[in-house]
Structures are given as C-alpha cells and as structure tokens.
C-alpha cells in the first residue's frame, strides 16, 4: 500500500479500538441523529464475526428481538461507534472465528 494512503488511513482510524472478541456479549454505543439532536443508541448482542482489516474492519453483532434474529454490522473505526463495552464473555471460548452456526440454533443450544 502506498505510504500516503497508509498515513491517511492512520489519521482516519481510531487510535485505540475497544478490545472484545468473537463470542462476547457486547454493548455498542452508536450515535444516531434524531431531528436536530444526537443521541446514543445502544445495541446489545453477541459478536459473531470480525471482517476486513485496517480502516475497513467491521464486526457483526447478533441478538434476538421478539423471536427474530437481528444482525447489525458496524465499522470498527466509524466515528459513530463511540464505545463498545463487554457485557459478559462466553461461558466457553469459541473455537472458531465466525459464529454463523448460531443462526441455526435456538434457546439453550444457541449459548456458548
């Protein structure tokens, strides 16, 4: 990659990214605009994947809303993602990096 682009990316990236891992139940604080006001809308769920690298790195959070699985993908370096905090870790550390098998599971078997 070109040096100029590397520098540009470093400037646009967050200096410190919140540390969490696949399998963690996380709370993502996302800034949304409501009319003129801005407020933080938290999204709580299980992190099921990291994707991409550098400034393009994203992570996906999955939760069940009214019996329906909902997944949201956030850009790790987006200025709108103000904070990601770990609610609790998994009971058993997952052995794989993508937890897509959780999509087919329900109830207790969907727990790690």
């Amino acid at each position, binding site marked *: 990659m*070109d040096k100029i*682009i590397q520098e*540009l*990316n470093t400037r646009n990236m967050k200096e410190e990214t919140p540390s969490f891992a696949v399998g963690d139940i996380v709370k993502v604080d996302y800034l949304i605009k409501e009319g003129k006001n801005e407020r933080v809308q938290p999204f709580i769920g299980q992190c099921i994947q990291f994707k991409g690298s550098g400034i393009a790195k994203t992570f996906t959070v999955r939760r069940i809303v009214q019996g329906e699985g909902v997944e949201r993908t956030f850009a790790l370096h987006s*200025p*709108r993602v103000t904070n990601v905090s770990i609610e609790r870790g998994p009971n058993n550390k997952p052995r794989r990096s993508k937890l897509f098998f959780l999509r087919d599971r329900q109830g207790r078997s969907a727990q790690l």
Partner: protein
Amino acid sequence: MTTKNFLLAKKKGMTQIFREDGSVVPVTVLDVSDCAITLLRTPERDSYSAVQVGLKQARDKHVAKPQRVAADKAGVKNYKDHCEFRVDSVEGFELGQELGADVFTIGEVIDIAGKSKGRGFAGSIKAHGFRRGNETHGCQTVRAPGSIGQCAYPGRVFKGTRMAKHLGNSRFTVKNSVIEGIDSERGLLLVRGGVPGPPNGLIQVSTAKTGVQPK
C-alpha cells in the same frame, strides 16, 4: 463556459473514509502536490487558449532538452510531466503559478482522465463481454467468439464487428466524479469511486463538462 478548474495528479490508490453521518465512502487518493503552470497558450501566438500544467519538479538531467529549454525560456522550474488544459482565456493565470488541491471545492463534480491499465490482446469475452460456450457436453469452443457473419450474401464481415482486440492502455475518462475530500496541506484530493490507470499513473482532473454542480 463557466470557470473551469483543473489539476494534474498522480493516482495513489483507493481507501475509504467516513462521512459525518457515519456512512462509508470509497475514495481514490490523488496526489496533486507540486503542480504549477508552465506555459500559457494565447490566441495571438498559438491560435488557441490553453494552460500548460507541470507536475512534480525534476532535476535538470531528468528532463529532455526540448522541455528544459522551453522551461528556461518561460522562466519556470523543470517538471516531470506536462499537460495542457483548454480555457476560454488565460487571464488570471500566471506563469509559474502554483496550483494546489484547494482550486477545487468539496462536492465539486469533476471529470477524471487517465491512461487505463493495459490488458494486452484480449479475447471477445474480456473485451466485449461476450458469453462463453459450454465447457462440457463435448463443446470445443469455450471462449471463441462464434459466428461473425452470414454466408455468400453479404460474403464479407461487416465493419465494426466486435472481435478480439488490444484492450486498455488508452485514454479513458470517468465523468461526473465527486470530490469527497481535500487536503491542501499534503496536496491530496479524495475522489469518490475509481480512477483509470495504475497506481502512480498520470491523471488529469478538471471541472465536469456536462455534470450539474451542486449549489
């Protein structure tokens, strides 16, 4: 013609930036530092109006003699690459005047011209998007173009029939791109979407000919 802004640039590559609202924009980074006016073409002298722009200063020994002498005559520094941009009138432009990324504004609609990557002698699938034949069931014409005409009448292949050809390595213009970011300090232009040519390719950026500028 309304005011036309232009610059010579070097393509650096692609990345992404975040907008205020959190949306992600794919951008190409253009290096426009060290760009200056090297020659003015006037109707009296050259029978047309244009501004010649140079990019990246070069040492004497790296510039061919015709360009070196021309630069000496005009009293400007030596530049590696040159390009002319047609203008209505050269008024307001000065020899040796340095052009920076700030000649453009964010949101401005621009045309980007450059030399596309060479693909060599490309078949009809790559060059024209023809469909390929079956790979199985005994077929032997997988990437062949197929029929290129009829029979005894007309007894020839029509002109312009699409066939394999030398592809790329030719001038290509991307119209109505949008400037997403400007860094005049570092001499960078961030342009939404792709730009023709390889990294470090020479790129001409100018205000769009046909696109509608934002108000």
